């Protein structure tokens, strides 16, 4: 044949290559590829897991931030309520104090009035007593002088 083409040699080359292909495919290519695929799958799984963990962490962060925002709001509300309560308490205490002061004042006033009355009463009675005593004294003084003058007159009359 032209160019020294030989069918038998072509077939021998083919047979040689088929044997080589079978051995290389099953003994070398397939196991190495299986190993690479397995490792790729492992890395892919790790990557997915890492991504999932990252997503979870991001979600947890969001949740905590939301909670923090809620807590701040809650603190603000509680503070406002506490301020309101304390203001109310203070008002109440102030009004109670005023009320109590008023009551004390009234009581004091009443007591003062009563004491004044008592004192006036006592003073009146003392004045009466003093007047009586003065009147008594006056009467006694006046009656003794009259008696003395009577006696003297009587004595004078006797002598006469």
């Amino acid at each position, binding site marked *: 044949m032209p*160019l*020294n*083409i*030989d069918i*038998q*040699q*072509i*077939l*021998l*080359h*083919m047979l*040689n*290559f*088929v*044997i*080589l*292909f079978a*051995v*290389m*495919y099953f*003994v*070398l*290519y*397939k*196991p*190495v*590829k299986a*190993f*690479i695929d397995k*490792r790729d799958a*492992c890395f892919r799984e790790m990557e997915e897991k890492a991504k999932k963990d990252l997503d979870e962490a991001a979600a947890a962060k969001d949740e905590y931030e939301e909670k923090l925002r809620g807590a701040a709001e809650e603190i603000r509300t509680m503070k406002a309520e506490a301020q309101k309560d304390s203001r109310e308490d203070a008002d109440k205490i102030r009004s109670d104090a005023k009320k109590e002061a008023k009551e004390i004042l009234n009581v004091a006033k009443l007591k003062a009035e009563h004491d004044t009355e008592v004192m006036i009463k006592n003073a009146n009675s003392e004045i009466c007593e003093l007047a009586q005593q003065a009147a008594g004294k006056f009467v006694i003084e006046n009656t003794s002088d009259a008696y003395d003058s009577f006696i003297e007159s009587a004595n004078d009359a006797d002598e006469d």
Partner: protein
Amino acid sequence: MSKKRKIVSLAVFGVIIAALIAGIVITAPHAGIKEPINEVMKDAVLHETGRIDIFGKIQVNPALVSAWIVTGILIVFAVITRIFFIPKFTQIPGRFQYLLERGVGLFTGLAKQNSPQKTQFIGGYIFTAGVYIFIGTIFELFGFQAVTVSGFSISLPAPLADINGAIAMGFFSYGVILFGGLVNNGIKGMLHALKDFTLPVSMSFRLFGALLSGALVTELVYYYALTSYVVPVIVGVLFTLLHALIQAYVLTMLVSIFYGESSEKKEKPVRPEKIKKEKRRKTV
């Protein structure tokens, strides 16, 4: 100038002078050209005279012996790797594992790129073909000797430098492409691949031509005494390495592209009548 540098300079000068003297001696008139260049080239292409006898039963071209030796080397390598190295593969690869994974990954990537439907089989095929072409082409650099039927010693060529080897590779690759079409698309896929009936011829002759051109250039360089000194070391090695790489890449890429085309799932073309009916329905 340091002592080390002086020694290096002297050595370089010594080598140059020795080389020049050798060149003068070799290129002396009538320095041993025995066979005319056209005969040498014809032998390199056709291997008509340099056949090798196998156990006295069959006479084969030297390239077939090269093919057997290359196949033997690759099979031994594969078996040793399978038994001793693959079971010890680690997640972080060492040098040898990395090299092996790169080789497999390169051809798998090529298969995925050109034939995304089915990659396992074609990846394995182009891996084998690529390694065979590359190692087979480099094989000629070692210059293993064999004795021909006529009793001369010849240097074993690359397996695919023989047209029979190239034809075998081209037709086998075409068979793989047909097989891919048949398996993935049935008879239609095979018929689609059959349309490119020039493909095996073009693949065979491209491979043969490329490898033969390398062999011819090397032969030409070695033929003349003047160029056979110093030049072949660079030309032979570089040229062989270069076309080994290029041919391994070209054939594997072509096979994967045509395999991808033949195994690609084809959508059934919609008939114009159906389109008209659809339009009518929509308008109604």
